[in-house]
C-alpha cells in the first residue's frame, strides 16, 4: 500500500423492515411466495388507488434513527422519485427527499486500528422495488420477467457520511449497523436474501487534500466479505489509474464475485434526474415527543454498550465480549444464564467453546438447541461443586444439547458422578501403579510429566469419572514421599 492517497468511503445501506404487511397496502411481505402472489391494486400501481402508510414502518424508522443517535424530524414527508424501470409498476418510487425521518447521527465502530466515529447523514423511508429475471444476460435478453411481490416492502435507507478511510472500517461500520438492526429486531438483516443491501461510494485523494477525488459507486456486494473485497479491489484500481496519471471516471460499477473484480455498468453513466416532488397521495408525518419517547422505550441495550459493559462490569476479555455480543441471541442467552450463575468468565468459556461448536455443527441459533439457560447454569454448578469433572461435563453437555434433559437427571441416571472418595479410588490407583512400572520409575526420578500420564490412566479406567485433582494428589503421596 502506498501512502500517497487517502481513501474516502461512504455507504448507503438499505434495510428491509420485518413488518407483516407492506408499507402502503395490506399485502403480506412474506419471502418466497409464488411470483406476484403478494400483489394488489395499490402495490401494482393501478389507477385510482391510494397508498396508506403502515404505522409500524414509522415506528421502526424512529427506533433506527434513535439507535443511530440521529435527530428525529418533527415534520417529515414523502416524495416521488421518478424513473422508468420495470421493477417499479408506477414508474416512480415513493421515497423521502428533503425531509427524511431522521438526520445527523453517528455510531462508534472498532477495527484493529482503533475506535472511530462514523457519521450517519440520514435515515429515510421508502418502498422496495420488484424483482426482475432477465431472459439471458441483461444486455442481450429479449425480455424480462417481473415479480412484484417485493414491491412495496418497507425499507429504510441509511446514508453514512464519507467518514471511512479503509475497507476494514467500512466492513466494521456495516457489521455494527447490522447488529444494531438485529438488536432492535426491526429487520432480518440477511444479505444473501437481500434484506440488507449495501452500496458504496469510493474515491481517492492525495494525502492532505481537502477536496474529494472523483468517486465510483459500487453495487451488488451481497455479503460482508464481498463488501471488503469489492472495496479493496476498487481502491487498488483507482490507485493504479492515478499512478498512471489517468483519471477516475464517475460511474456505477458492479462487483462480480466470480471474476473477483468490479465492472463498469455502461449505460448508467448519464446523470440521474429523478424529478423528485412531494407525494400528493400521502399526508405529512408529524412526530411529537410522546411518539419518540414511546419508541425510545422499545430500544434495548445496544451491542456496543453491551460490549463495553461485559468488559467493564463482568470483567470479560475484549475478545469474549465481542463474540458474545456479536449475536443478539447469544448475548441474551449468556445474560439469562448469568442470572442463575455468577462466574462470567467460566460461562463465557463454555459458551464460546462447546456451545458455539455444537451450534455451528448443527446450524442452530442459541435458543434452538436442547440446552436452556437454566440447565446450563445447573451444569456449571455441578462442575464447581466437584460433582462432575470438566471432562464428563462435556459429555453431559452434549447429551443436554441433543435431548433437552436437565444435567442432574443425566448425571444421576447415567452414573456420571465424579469419584471424589479416596477409598473408592485407592484400589484403582494402586492397580495403575502396578501396571506402569516405567512411568512410576520416571516419577521417582523426578520427571513431573509422568504424573500426568498416570492420572490419565486412572481417568481412563474410571471413564473420566475420577476427580483428577484428587488422583494427582494421591499419586504424589504414594510415589514422591
Amino acid at each position, binding site marked *: 500500500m502506498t501512502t500517497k492517497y487517502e481513501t474516502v468511503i461512504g455507504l448507503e445501506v438499505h434495510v428491509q423492515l420485518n413488518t407483516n404487511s407492506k408499507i402502503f397496502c395490506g*399485502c403480506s411481505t412474506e419471502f418466497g411466495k409464488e*411470483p*406476484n402472489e403478494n400483489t394488489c391494486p395499490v402495490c401494482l400501481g393501478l389507477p385510482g388507488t391510494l397508498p396508506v402508510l403502515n404505522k409500524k414502518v414509522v415506528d421502526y424508522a424512529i427506533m433506527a434513527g434513535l439507535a443511530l443517535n440521529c435527530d428525529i424530524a418533527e415534520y417529515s414527508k414523502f416524495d416521488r422519485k421518478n424513473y422508468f424501470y420495470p421493477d417499479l409498476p408506477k414508474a416512480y418510487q415513493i421515497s423521502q427527499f428533503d425531509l427524511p425521518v431522521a438526520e445527523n447521527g453517528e455510531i462508534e465502530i472498532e477495527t484493529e486500528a482503533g475506535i472511530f466515529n462514523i457519521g450517519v447523514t440520514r435515515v429515510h423511508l421508502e418502498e422496495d422495488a420488484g424483482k426482475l429475471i432477465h431472459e439471458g444476460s441483461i444486455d442481450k435478453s*429479449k425480455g*424480462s420477467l417481473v*415479480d412484484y411481490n417485493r414491491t412495496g416492502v418497507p425499507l429504510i435507507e441509511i446514508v453514512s457520511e464519507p467518514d471511512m478511510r479503509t475497507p476494514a472500517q467500512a466492513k466494521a461500520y456495516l457489521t455494527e449497523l447490522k447488529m444494531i438492526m438485529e438488536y432492535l429486531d426491526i429487520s432480518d438483516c440477511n444479505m444473501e436474501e437481500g434484506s440488507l443491501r449495501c452500496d458504496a461510494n469510493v474515491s481517492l485523494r492525495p494525502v492532505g487534500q481537502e477536496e474529494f477525488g472523483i468517486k465510483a459507486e459500487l453495487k451488488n456486494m451481497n455479503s460482508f466479505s464481498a463488501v471488503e473485497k469489492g472495496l479493496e479491489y476498487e481502491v487498488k484500481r483507482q490507485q493504479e489509474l492515478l499512478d498512471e496519471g489517468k483519471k477516475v471516471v464517475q460511474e456505477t460499477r458492479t462487483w462480480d464475485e466470480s471474476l473477483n473484480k468490479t465492472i463498469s455498468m455502461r449505460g448508467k453513466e448519464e446523470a440521474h434526474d429523478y424529478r423528485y416532488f412531494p407525494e400528493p397521495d400521502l*399526508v405529512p408525518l408529524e412526530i411529537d415527543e410522546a411518539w419518540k419517547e414511546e419508541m425510545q422505550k422499545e430500544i434495548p441495550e445496544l451491542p456496543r454498550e453491551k460490549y463495553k459493559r461485559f468488559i467493564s462490569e463482568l470483567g470479560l476479555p475484549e475478545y469474549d465480549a465481542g463474540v458474545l455480543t456479536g449475536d443478539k441471541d447469544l448475548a441474551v442467552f449468556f445474560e439469562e444464564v448469568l442470572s442463575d450463575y455468577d462466574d462470567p468468565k467460566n460461562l463465557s468459556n463454555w459458551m464460546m467453546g462447546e456451545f458455539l461448536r455444537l451450534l455451528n455443527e448443527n446450524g442452530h441459533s442459541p435458543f434452538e438447541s436442547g440446552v436452556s439457560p437454566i440447565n446450563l447454569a445447573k451444569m456449571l454448578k455441578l462442575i464447581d461443586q466437584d460433582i462432575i469433572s470438566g471432562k464428563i461435563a462435556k459429555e453431559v453437555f452434549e447429551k443436554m444439547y441433543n435431548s433437552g434433559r436437565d444435567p442432574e437427571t443425566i448425571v444421576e441416571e447415567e452414573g456420571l458422578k465424579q469419584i471424589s472418595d479416596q477409598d473408592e479410588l485407592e484400589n484403582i490407583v494402586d492397580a495403575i501403579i502396578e501396571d506402569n512400572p516405567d512411568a512410576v520409575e520416571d516419577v521417582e526420578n523426578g520427571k513431573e510429566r509422568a504424573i500426568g500420564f498416570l492420572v490419565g490412566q486412572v481417568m481412563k479406567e474410571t471413564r473420566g469419572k475420577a476427580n483428577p485433582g484428587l488422583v494427582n494428589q494421591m499419586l504424589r503421596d504414594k510415589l514422591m514421599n
Partner: protein
Amino acid sequence: MIDKKDVEYAAGLAQLKLDEEEKEKYTEQIGEILNYVDKLSELDTDDVVPTAYTVPMKNVLREDQVKDSLPREKSLANAPDEKDGHFRAPKIMSD
C-alpha cells in the same frame, strides 16, 4: 425561459418521442405556462414555509395487518404479456 433543448430533455426523461413541429409547439406552450406561473415570484414569500400539502391533515396511518392480496390471475389480467406467473417486460437495455 425555456428553449427547445429543455423540451427535448424533458421529453427524453418522460420517454416521449416528439417530431420537430411538436417540439416547437411545446416550447412555445410550456414557455407561456411558465411565464404565467412566474407571476407568483412577484410576491414576497420570504417568511412563508413552502407548502407541500394543501389539505390540513397529518399522520394518516394504518395498523400493520395483512389483508388478502388479489388472486394472481386478476393481478396479471391486464398485463400485455405474461409468462410463468410473471409480468413480461420488453427488452430493457437499448443496444
